[in-house]
């Protein structure tokens, strides 16, 4: 229950488009295409992550466990498919930072214990692929260690922290009953 880190440090993948800007409104079909929806084994979902996002189709072979994703606004817009969160869990992605998250995506991440952080207005000017960042989930503060730059994200809610500490929504709910 106490093993979950509050401070996450990792190597960044800045999910940029052809113009070098962080992608906005990356939808659930771009994160995890519908042709793989019948897959039920989470471990198998990793290889399909970003499989339909132009320029990022080879992400699963590039990403390493412990890496951090940074992306633009409305990340995970669209469908309620949890595959779009699980595929990153499967790859060992430690944290997803976005300018904002799709409403259902945000809940899916929180409730399955995947750490996400909202940093309003985060842009490609703040952080680049390969840079190292340190994020504090409790305060929402993100430090770009390479540049000595600090970004202010939204601190986690108590429920988000409790679910994360418990492992997932079900473990959290069960703990509440004990």
């Amino acid at each position, binding site marked *: 229950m106490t093993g979950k880190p509050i401070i996450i440090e990792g190597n960044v993948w800045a999910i940029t488009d052809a113009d070098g800007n962080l992608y906005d409104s990356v939808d*659930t079909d*771009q994160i995890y*295409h519908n*042709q793989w*929806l*019948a897959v039920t084994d989470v471990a198998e979902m990793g290889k399909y992550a970003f499989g339909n996002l132009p320029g990022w189709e080879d992400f699963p072979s590039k990403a390493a466990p412990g890496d951090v994703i940074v992306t633009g606004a*409305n990340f995970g817009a669209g469908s309620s498919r*949890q595959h779009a969160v699980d595929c990153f869990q499967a790859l060992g992605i430690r944290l997803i930072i976005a300018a904002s998250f799709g409403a259902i995506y945000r809940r899916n991440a929180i409730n399955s214990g995947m750490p996400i952080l909202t940093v309003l207005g985060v842009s490609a000017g703040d952080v680049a692929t390969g840079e190292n960042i340190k994020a504090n989930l409790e305060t929402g503060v993100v430090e770009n260690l390479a540049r000595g730059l600090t970004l202010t994200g939204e601190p986690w809610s108590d429920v988000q922290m409790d679910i994360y500490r418990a492992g997932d929504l*079900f473990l959290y709910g*069960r703990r509440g009953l004990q």
Partner: protein
Amino acid sequence: MGKPFAEKIFSARAGRDVVPGEIITVEPDYVLSHDNTAAIAATFAKMGAEKVLHPERLVIVLDHCVPAADAKHAENHKKIREFVAEQGVEHFYDVGRGICHQVLPEEGFARPGRLILGSDSHTTTYGALGAFSAGIGRSEAAAIWATGEIWLMCPESVRMNMTGEFARGVGPKDLILSIIGDVGADGMLYKSVEFAGETMEVMSVAGHMVLANMSVEMGAKNGYVAPNDKTAEWLASRESAEYEAVYPDADASYESELEYDVTDLPPMVAKPHTVDNVAPVEEVVGTAVDQVVLGTCTNGREDDLEEAARILEDRTVASGCRLLVFPASREIWREAMKSGAFEAIEGAGGIIMNAGCGPCLGAHEGVLAPGEVCLSTANRNFKGRMGTPEAEIYLASPATAAATAVEGRIADPRGYL
């Protein structure tokens, strides 16, 4: 200062005063799942849960790939039927009954004042009947099955006031596309959106459903239409007449209020590859189209099929263009048989399919080839949504869809009505 709908229903459920941003634990009245029930059941088992706490609160509708397109989907359906039997789930609707977002209203689950969560993003549809309804994910659905409850954060509310009367050939789909184009795909992120004003009073319940259904496409948590005479009439016809409606206070305070006058609204389209890439149909008139999809949970109701039939009657679908029709439910299928709508559509060369999601999410029954262009009355045109990422999808109203099928090119329906 009074409260909007979301704060009213959250406060009622919590038994205390709830403000936006507050998190409460709720017991949903119903939890919807569809073909993804197989995956939810796997998660449920993996969590270590055995027995569904309230099997009577589960509503399971097979609609996403029905009848099964291949062995993998067939196996999932089989697992779901076994799960339904094991857990004693009484509200199970097998292949052929219809699309969940039409079946829940028809079967009386969606009513004013109810709290419904569903493992599908278009669960927002039931707000058209005055419910609070929102999409959730697989782990969330599994946890509700096990514990009967879940946390929800009370959203901020935005009110959209509609005035004016639609021009001929223009309707709710054009309005919601225009709104989404205006506010953007994340314009209403996490918000509770209330559709109000004089236009809503004359709009049919099917029209209300179009707006609520697509509110998720601007990021909204839920959409809501205050129950009115039309709602009451609709519910009475479904034997769903008993309910306790929750209305926003007359002096409710909203985060913002937006005004839309529909009087001069033209037919609208969403161009590839995002729902907020919206333009008047004039801008794309003449674009060659390989396939037209009429139906789905957005526009597969009687109003929609009859509107299309009026245009298709005594006309022919253009050569080289396929018109596929997906009624939202078996009931609607029968209605369209009786009303003559199917005769007109079939007579024009349209292909009438069974009630279900069809190719909307790329599963089967009309997925596209690379390089093809489709105009659809569905709610999403993401790159790759209907199969290959190398196809283009335009979204539009049933009238625009019918006119487009006749010409084989995107067409303005106003010349046909």
